[in-house]
């Protein structure tokens, strides 16, 4: 019989106590490269739509209200997103970011999964259904 090693493990674990974290009171630090909810910055966006085209989950839609005046609205479906990070790579202007800390996304309201980024007035136009949407 050669069970000595395994028993040592078992006894060690017995005195060690549980290793489960007491979430939500204790939180593990997420790794720097962890991908959570996408953020979009309007400043450099040219409305090229590469992020929308490359998204494998159809989670992104860039609504162009006026290309010359740089009036874009970014519609992001969190529930569709697979957090693969392709959009961040596709964007030539570094407008997109997947931060590591915004990962507590569970909600009971489906509307919360639809996120709009952009100027408030422009977002309202899109929400009112006055802008032409669709890729």
């Amino acid at each position, binding site marked *: 019989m*050669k069970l000595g*090693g395994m028993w040592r493990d078992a006894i060690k674990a017995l005195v060690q106590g549980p290793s489960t974290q007491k979430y939500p009171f204790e939180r593990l630090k997420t790794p*720097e490269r962890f*991908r959570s909810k996408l953020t979009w910055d309007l400043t450099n966006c040219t409305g090229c739509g590469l992020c929308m085209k490359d998204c*494998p989950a159809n989670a992104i839609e860039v609504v162009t209200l006026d290309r010359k005046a740089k009036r874009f609205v970014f519609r992001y479906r969190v529930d569709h997103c*697979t*957090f693969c990070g392709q959009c961040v790579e596709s964007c030539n202007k570094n407008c997109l970011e997947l931060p*590591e800390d915004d990962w507590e996304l569970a909600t009971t309201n489906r509307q919360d999964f639809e996120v709009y980024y952009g100027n408030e007035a422009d977002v309202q136009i899109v929400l009112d259904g006055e802008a032409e949407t669709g890729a």
Partner: protein
Amino acid sequence: MATHNPTQKAPERETFKIPIGPQHPALKEPGHFEFAVDGETVTDATVRLGYVHRGIEKGVESRTWIQGQYLVERVCGICSHVHATTYCLAVEKLAGVEAPPRAQAIRSLVAELERIHSHMLWLGVAAHEAGFDMLFMYSWRDRETVMNLLEGITGNRVNYSANILGGVKCDITPEQDAAIRAGVDYLEERTRHYLDVVQNDTMFMRRTKNVGTMTREQAEQMGVVGPTARASGVPRDIRVDAPYAAYKDFPVNVITETAGDLHARFVVRVNELFETFRLIRAILDHLPEGDLQTRVKRKIPAGETIMRIEAPRGELFYYVKSAGGETPDRVKIRTPTLPNMASVLELAVGHQLADMPMILTGIDPCFSCNDRMITVRDTHSNQRDVWTWDQLRKYGMNAAQ
């Protein structure tokens, strides 16, 4: 008074068929097995697969080249990186570009870390099937080390999406280098302990020694791949036979065993872990400098290619065809479980029914990976047709000419 009549024939022994599955046949994946038994001994075995056909190949055809990578990554939850790597390498081959050396080395590095994760997961599952739950729990606990490393490097525990057409997304920083080395040191020490348990534990030896023995001839005849073949003494490893990514610069020693039984499959996989640890250290020691990505055009020139990679379970095969557009024309995937599955049916005969879960787990099966469907259509009449093995063989030979 009962008299014995010597002319009366003894009734023929009835065979009893035991259906197992499709729900939860030993593993938590669907597959249907039928074992004909004589008492407790299995005399015949059949399998029916295809319960988790997800239409991934067709799905890739309706996506762009870039989107396709994330879909094939989801073929397997355990070896997701090798699927994405095979796809990327195939597409890059079609596009006529090559990822920079640093990207190739990182691809190999993540693939090797994934091999550790897969083998340790398998060790746990196989131990669980043998009734050795203690080994299962501890090997899965230690697997967390490599999962955390992968999360640190790529940002995710599974479906890492480390690849991108033309390179990789993630670099290895000096801190990560140190973390990987520390993690690998810990895992090496633990693996030495597991090898000791696998080789010396009496109960475990009884469950594995001389069970499901496959000779080298049988292995070659059935075309088994990966550690299952190597446990029968077939030195078959794509990393050596057709080096891809960075394996030309970081050669691999093929680990083989000759016994061919379940025990040999355990020893091969655990010993392979040591080779993987060595390889990871070698890649970190000589990680080439340079860019991580090279540009790949959105439209891939028309053509077709194949790509083979050594996944943790064996040879993974991709056939990719482009018609010159932004979407693939055809992507065919063959995962290592499919060639290995034939060996399960062959080896089952003559063994106890209780050994079946162990023999099945011995090949490290992944059902949802291998479930695909091919419909043969007559191009003239547009009629569906079912082909026999001989017809398929003849077709293959004609097509090859």
